[in-house]
Structures are given as structure tokens and as C-alpha cells.
């Protein structure tokens, strides 16, 4: 009933639910300061407050909640990675995602659609077989599938043998999923703020105070704060913030571009990606086709969209789904990815005492949000590095023990 809805909307008693209490004045001291109010920062605060009883926490966000890479990723959740450390870490995250709406009592619109990666060469089939074996060994649903199965899974995929790169086989990952990325950040922020955490938006950290190798506070554009510990969770600006604490990082920032079509009827269920033609495509629950995965060829701190990427992403998407030729583009955007040399994140201790790193999130940050919240909060609360994130510490680069995560990006490997 449209009039009923109008009446409801104009009513003084409109029960609009606030996700968090608007920021007050900054306190002089917090036990923990989290720099970065994205999914990761909010998840760490949520876990500190709910499971470790640490509620004197401030999240400092220079812009607005979830407005950085949390808003710019393409919301892919999967765990079909290649290294043991990677698969264990991301599969825990997928498990947490599956229960996230219950955890929050807030709908994050989790959809278990499955993910299909396409092989167009013998070399790709070999590497997929390897990945499938590693995944199955660690309890992740991942298997090599033939052309017939692919045609059944994605009936509208171009299976022609006359295309430039005919599809030979695929890696089917039944655990693959998607969720509403904004809702993930909002759910965590709401849960954290309900338990006493303060979210301060438009609050930028300008300097980090360090005395005797230990962090003592931060200076912001709204005044100075003393604190017991600092966590930086600022994917896309990790090098810039870490530099304020005097910590060099092995990161280069590249823009990653994606685009989305107008909404159409639902015809594509799984997430489909092709490392060969460099594209991934999925249809959102709103009906838009998300076409993603184009990294700029050189580092840049800029989220502009380019015609080059639009052309190459379109060409690749049309090769897989020729019917998209009629689709109208709605928008194109970029996020800044922290690319590490080994395609794995940098989590854990830093050279500065009580200063914790949650960085290097490249193109794998959104899917790691829940497990990152759990493990980083445990680290801050107990000062012990959880086994799950031990391999990802910054020190690995000094010991030449990188984790070569060749399964890190859906479109580039």
C-alpha cells in the first residue's frame, strides 16, 4: 500500500535505526586506538569489545565508516587459495561469514553462490589440480571440473571452441560466496558501538607518538590522544600511516578497477573468473553484473577510472558472456590495493611495541574481514600472535620466508 508506506515514512515515530551513536568529543585516553574505520577496523573493535571485554576503544576514520576499500571491493568470498597458511586462514573466514548475520542479528546478505575459475590452457589445468588437492586436504570444497559440468553450472557461458581462448576446464569452489560489503562494516560497527566502542569519523591521524620504542599516543586533526595500543587497518594507505610510526613496508599501491552494468533479470548464479582473459563476472542480488579485476600497470594513489581498463575488461567479459554486448554500464570505479611481493597480507607485530599491523590487503581484504577481526583482537588482547596469522608477520620478509600465494587474485594468476 503506497499510502501506508508514505504515512510510515512521514511519521514522527519513524523507527529509523541508528547504526552507531554519532561521534562525541575525543577522550584523552583509550586502551586501544584503531586507525581506519573500514570493515577490518570495525571487526577488530567488535571482537575486542564482545569477546575480550576491552571497550575503551576508539576507531579513528579520516572519512566515513566503510567508505574506503570496504566500499570499493567486489564482495567476493572464497577460500580456494594455494598455500597451506592461506587456505587455513581464508577458510576460517568463510566459516565466520556463514554465521555473520546470526552473530550480528543483522542481515549481511550472505549468498553461497559458488565460484568457478576457468582454465584455458594445460598449464592452468595443472595448477588448478594442485589447488584442488591442497584445498580438499584442508577441508575446502574445491574440485577440477570438465567442460560439460561447466556448461551445466553456467549455461550462458560461451563454450565455443572457436573463441580466442576456448575453455578447457574449471576449478569449482562450492564454498564461494558473496555478501553485502557495506552491511559487513555496518554490522561490525553497530555491534562494537553498542558495547561502548567510539567511532570517530572525519578524524585523521597526523602523527604517532613513540617513546622508547613503544607507542604512547596519536595526534589527530581533532587533538591528541594517549593510548595503550594502536592497530592500523588502513588498506590502501598502509605505507603512509606506517611511515608515521617509522615502519617501512614491502607494499606498492596499485588502483584496481571494476565496473557494473544496469540491473537485469537473474541469469548468472556463480561467480565466474578467468585468469587468462583477466576478468571476473558475477551478478549481484540486485541484478547488476559486476565486471572486475583490472589492475593499473603502475602504482598510483588515485581512484580514477580509465578508458583503457573499461575497454580491456569489456573485451574480456564479452569473450565469456557475449550477451553482455547489449548491457549498459552504470558506473566504473577503482580501489587502492596494497600489493605485497608475495600476495599475502601483513598482520601482527611491528618493530614498535604495542603497534599492530593489519596491512597488505591487496585484492583479498574483504573476504578476510571476519577472521582478521578475530585474530587481530586476540593479538591485541593477549599480546600472543595467534597461530593462524603467525606466517603473515612482517618479519617474514627479513627471514626470506615469503608465502607465495599464487591463488590470491581471481583474475591475475
Amino acid at each position, binding site marked *: 500500500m503506497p499510502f501506508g508506506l508514505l504515512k510510515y515514512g512521514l511519521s514522527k515515530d519513524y523507527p529509523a535505526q541508528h547504526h552507531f551513536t554519532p561521534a562525541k568529543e575525543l577522550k584523552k585516553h583509550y586502551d586501544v586506538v584503531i586507525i581506519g574505520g573500514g570493515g577490518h577496523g570495525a571487526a577488530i573493535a567488535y571482537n575486542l569489545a564482545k569477546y575480550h571485554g576491552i571497550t575503551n576503544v576508539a576507531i579513528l576514520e579520516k572519512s566515513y565508516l566503510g567508505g574506503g576499500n570496504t566500499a570499493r571491493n567486489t564482495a567476493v568470498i572464497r577460500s580456494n587459495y594455494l598455500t597451506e597458511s592461506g587456505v587455513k586462514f581464508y577458510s576460517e573466514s568463510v566459516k565466520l561469514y556463514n554465521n555473520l548475520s546470526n552473530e550480528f542479528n543483522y542481515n549481511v546478505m550472505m549468498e553461497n553462490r559458488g565460484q568457478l575459475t576457468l582454465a584455458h590452457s594445460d598449464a592452468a589445468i595443472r595448477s588448478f589440480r594442485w589447488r584442488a588437492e591442497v584445498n580438499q586436504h584442508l577441508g575446502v570444497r574445491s574440485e577440477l571440473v570438465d567442460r560439460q559440468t561447466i556448461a551445466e553450472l553456467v549455461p550462458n557461458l560461451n563454450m565455443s571452441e572457436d573463441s580466442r581462448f576456448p575453455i578447457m576446464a574449471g576449478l569449482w569452489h562450492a564454498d564461494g560466496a558473496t555478501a553485502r560489503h557495506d552491511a559487513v562494516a555496518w554490522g561490525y560497527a553497530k555491534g562494537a558501538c553498542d558495547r561502548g566502542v567510539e567511532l570517530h569519523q572525519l578524524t585523521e591521524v597526523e602523527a604517532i607518538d613513540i617513546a622508547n620504542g613503544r607507542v604512547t599516543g596519536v595526534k589527530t586533526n581533532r587533538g591528541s590522544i594517549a593510548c595503550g595500543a594502536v592497530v592500523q587497518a588502513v588498506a590502501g594507505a598502509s*605505507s*603512509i600511516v606506517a611511515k608515521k610510526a617509522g615502519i*617501512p*613496508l*614491502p*607494499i*606498492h*599501491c596499485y588502483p584496481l578497477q571494476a565496473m557494473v552494468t544496469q540491473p537485469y533479470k537473474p541469469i548468472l548464479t556463480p561467480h565466474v573468473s578467468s585468469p587468462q582473459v583477466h576478468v571476473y563476472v558475477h551478478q549481484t542480488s540486485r541484478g547488476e553484473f559486476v565486471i572486475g579485476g583490472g589492475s593499473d*600497470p*603502475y*602504482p*598510483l*594513489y*588515485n581512484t*580514477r577510472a*580509465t*578508458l*583503457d581498463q573499461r575497454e580491456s575488461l569489456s573485451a574480456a567479459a564479452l569473450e565469456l558472456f557475449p550477451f553482455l554486448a547489449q548491457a549498459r554500464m552504470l558506473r566504473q570505479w577503482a580501489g587502492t590495493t596494497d600489493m605485497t*611481493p608475495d600476495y599475502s597480507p601483513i598482520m601482527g607485530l611491528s618493530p614498535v611495541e604495542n603497534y599492530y599491523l593489519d596491512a597488505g590487503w591487496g585484492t583479498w581484504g574483504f573476504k578476510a574481514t571476519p577472521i582478521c577481526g578475530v585474530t587481530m583482537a586476540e593479538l591485541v588482547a593477549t599480546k600472543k600472535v595467534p597461530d593462524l596469522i603467525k606466517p603473515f608477520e612482517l618479519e617474514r*620478509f*627479513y627471514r*626470506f620466508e615469503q608465502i607465495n600465494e599464487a591463488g590470491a587474485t581471481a583474475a591475475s594468476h
Partner: protein
Amino acid sequence: MKILTCPLNGPRNISEFTYGGEHHSMPDPNTTDSRAWAEHVFFHDNAAGIVTEWWCHSASSFWFLAERNTITDEVIRTFEASEIYNQRIDFVAASTVEGS
């Protein structure tokens, strides 16, 4: 298409070029410990602002340097490496370790 001016070949489409990393000087391999070497190999300044970096014109394999603003994506200038490397560098072979 963005244009980059190669000091050898003139203005060309940026798709003809390959980014070659930040320009930074190499520590002496004979005297550097592995920690400092790891930092040289893996760590980056990753600055937001004007940086000096290596580029290669792929078609002619010509390496040169560029000053570029990593916030606005403007190329300030490109120049030949000889502007910085104007003296001969003799790489001394790493001293042999006894028993190896």
C-alpha cells in the same frame, strides 16, 4: 590513452612501456647484512607525491627514468639514466667464503 615521452623514441602510448620500480640506490652486496638486503629487495618507499622511477620502452628495450606524481598521475619529466649514472660502476665480485 596516456602518453609517456621516451627520451629515445619520443611520445608514445603508455601501453608500450613497462613500469620498472622505484629508483633507489643499491647497497654494497659485500658489506650489507641480510636484513638491510631484504629491505633493499622487498621494501618500498611507496610515497604519495612526486617520485623517481624506472620505466622501459618495451619495443626498444630502452630503460630510462621518470619523475611522476603518484597522486595526480602527472608525469613531470622523463630523462636518460646517464643523468644520474654518469660514472662507471665496477661491480666487485662477492668475496669467496672459505670452504665454499
